[in-house]
Each structure stands twice: as structure tokens, then as C-alpha cells.
């Protein structure tokens, strides 16, 4: 039953994306200054918020695991972190491409872009830690602690980078900060795409959790098989 639900949600998310793309490409007017390229923005900001939501979910699940030692929190934490990393990668790449177009340089030391890269490295460390520890209980416990640390570190990273940028103002991707009043149609599309990304994230996390559970089952099967064979 669960798998059917995941497939259904997956298809619905895909359709939702197609509908959004249709609206973005064909119906929304061009942005005065940037022309067509601003449409990347709809695939730059929503994945960022979804990634942060995933990382927050992972941190909360890790805290719950430490309290209750229940496996499903650990499985959720690793799945949410991995999906968050994928979405953060989308945010990073689209940000770079947009910066390239705006200022002709691949890496604009924009505060958000730098913080996004640091965040990506922090959670890459989380996955590396999980790979390095063999015993499942030890791995779950240590990575839960690291996930909580990581979330605080990300908060500090964003704060510090923002202040750094206010003192050394480099190129800032203006539309991203939404200072100027944004066209209501674009605003609505932003939320639509955010909804689509959130739904996609839920589907991916669910798939990844199934994967993690079957990985765990295989490990115990292998142990039992060696014991018998």
C-alpha cells in the first residue's frame, strides 16, 4: 500500500512540475532587467527552502533518535539529509549559472551562495561519517549527534556570511533578496514550485527510506547467512 502511495505522489509531483513549467515558460512575462533568465529563480529558491526543511527534519529526527533510540528516526534522518544534499546541489548549480549570466563569473562570492556551499560540505561530512562507522547502533548515535551540530553550524554560517557581505559588498543577486516589489504572478509561482519541490522531497525521502530499510535487512540477512553457511 505504501509503495502505491509513493508512486501516486511521485506522479502527482511530476504533473505539478509540468504544469508549473508550462506557466513559467509560457505565461509569465519577462522580468524587466534580466529578460528570460530570471526563470531559473523558480528552480533556485524553492529547492533551497526544501533543502533547509530536510536538514531541519533530519536534526529533529536525530534528536528524537537520541531520546528514544527508535530506528525509524535514524532512517528518516539519513534519508532527509541525502535528499536535502541533492536539493542543495540544485540550488548551488542554478545559483552559479545565474551568477555567471548576471556578472560573467562562475563563482560570485555572494553571501547566500557561499553559505550554501559550506552547508553542502557540512552535510557531506555527515554522510562520510556514516560511511566510516560499521556498527549500526554506533553509526546511528554518532551521526545523530553530528546532525544536531551541523544544523547549528549552518545557522552560524548564514549569519556570519550575511554580515561579512554587508561589509564587503560583492555582487548580490538582487532579485533573490526580493527587495523590489515582486510581480504577484511570479510570487504565486514561487509558492507553487515550492509546493512541487516539497512534494518531490517527500517522495524521494520515502523512496530513500525504503532503500535504507532494505539495506538494513540485507545486512542482517548476510550476517545470518554467514552464521549458517
Amino acid at each position, binding site marked *: 500500500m505504501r509503495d502505491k502511495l509513493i508512486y501516486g505522489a511521485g506522479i502527482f509531483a511530476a504533473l505539478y512540475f509540468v504544469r508549473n513549467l508550462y506557466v513559467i515558460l509560457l505565461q509569465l512575462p519577462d522580468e524587466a532587467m534580466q529578460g528570460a533568465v530570471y526563470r531559473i529563480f523558480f528552480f533556485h529558491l524553492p529547492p533551497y527552502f526544501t533543502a533547509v526543511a530536510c536538514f531541519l527534519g533530519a536534526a529533529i529526527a536525530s534528536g528524537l533518535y*537520541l531520546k528514544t533510540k527508535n530506528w525509524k528516526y535514524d532512517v528518516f534522518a539519513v534519508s532527509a539529509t541525502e535528499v536535502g544534499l541533492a536539493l542543495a546541489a540544485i540550488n548551488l548549480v542554478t545559483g552559479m549559472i545565474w551568477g555567471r549570466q548576471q556578472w560573467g563569473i562562475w563563482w560570485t562570492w555572494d553571501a547566500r551562495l557561499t553559505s550554501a556551499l*559550506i552547508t553542502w*560540505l*557540512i552535510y557531506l*561530512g555527515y554522510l*562520510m*561519517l556514516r560511511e*566510516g*562507522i560499521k556498527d549500526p*547502533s*554506533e553509526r546511528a*548515535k*554518532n551521526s545523530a*549527534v*553530528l546532525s*544536531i*551540530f*551541523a544544523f*547549528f*553550524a549552518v545557522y*552560524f*554560517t548564514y*549569519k*556570519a*556570511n550575511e*554580515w*561579512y557581505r554587508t*561589509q564587503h559588498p560583492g555582487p548580490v543577486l538582487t532579485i533573490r533578496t526580493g527587495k523590489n516589489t515582486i510581480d504577484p504572478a511570479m510570487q504565486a509561482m514561487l509558492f507553487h514550485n515550492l509546493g512541487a519541490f516539497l512534494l518531490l522531497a517527500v517522495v524521494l525521502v520515502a523512496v530513500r527510506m525504503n532503500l535504507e530499510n532494505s539495506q538494513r535487512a540485507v545486512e542482517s540477512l548476510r550476517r545470518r547467512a554467514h552464521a549458517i553457511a
Partner: protein
Amino acid sequence: MTYFNQVFAIAGKDLRSELRTKEALNASLSFAVVILLLFSFVVDPDSEMLEQMSGGLLWMVFAFSGVLILNRGFARELPNDCLDALIASPIPGSALFFGKAIANFALIAIIEAICFPVFGILYNLTWTAQLPVLVAVSALATWAMATLGTMFGALTVNMQLRELMLPMLIYPMLIPALMSAMQLTTLLVAGQAIDSEHIVWLRVLIAFDIIFTSLAAVLVETVLVG
């Protein structure tokens, strides 16, 4: 009272066995001085530009040489299963954490105490104009390094790739503290006081220390006990 006694028993033990063998201290000290030397080929030593980079250079040196010491932190406990002996003793996990963090802090402070004069001599900078504030800022930043280093040392103690994992985990998270230290040190080495524009970096450093020290003190017990 016994808590402090236990914390300083551990810090004393670590410092005594490190200062006796000096293996990590010599390695990181020579590593630091070499980088200071190399830097003179990067920027022309008496240019005004060096003034801008002093904080950045110094803290990069401390961060990279410091990790050599942080790696030794828990590695010292592995022969003869000493870590089990410590965890089984009646000291709370936070006492073990603070003991080791203080030892790491002291060792990195030794490196800094040597590097600052060497830096001053090599690049003839009078860096002692704002000495008390500079020492305070360095202490805060070094404590941030010691806290994260000790905590992640505990996290990775049972891993084969320990020497690789610790830097991988600590550097991305340490960036806010390093950024603040670099900003403030550049200012202080140039002799200016911390003006209203840079006071924010002091706040970042202090908040960073408070939050991560308390997080580590609370969570280290769950990491150490299997």
C-alpha cells in the same frame, strides 16, 4: 569541587604526556613556521597589502597546524584501552570533554604564542598595540577550535580514517569562528581598536563558543558511552 579536580586531572594528564613526547607539538609548530615563511613568497613582505592579510594568514596557519594537535587528542587514549578506563571512572562525560578541550586549547595556545612574535619579526609588524584585546580574541577563537576538535575527536575515535575524518568535519563548521577571528585579528594587528562596525564579529565568536561548548558538554556523554 571534585568536578574541577577531575577536569584538571585529565587536562594535566594530557598536557604532561604531550609535553613529554612533544610529537604533535613539534610537528604542528614546524608546520606553522614553514607556512609563515612560505607566505613571504606569496605577498611582497613590506607591502601595505600584507597588513590586510595578517589576520587571514595567521588564522589559516593556526587552523591547519592546530588540527595536528586535535588529531592527537583522543588518539592518545587508544593504546591500552585507556578511553574505556576513563569512561568507566565516575567522572561525568562533560568533565572528560572539558579536560581534553582545555589540554588542546593550551597546546594550540603555545603555538600561537610562538607564531605571533615570529610573524612580527618576519614581517616587521608591531602587533602588540592592542595586545590584551588580541589575546582575548585569540583565546575565544582557539577555544572554538578546541571545542569542535575535542567533540569531533570523540565522534571519530573508533574510526580507521580518523586522521582524515576530523579535518573533514571540523573545517566547514569552524568557518564562522575563523572568519570572525580573521577580521578581528587583522584589525588588532594593525593596531586599531574594535570599532562599532567590527563589534559584530566579537559577538559571533562569543555566541559560537557558548552554543557549541554547551552542545558538546551535553552530547559528549551519548557519544562516548556505547
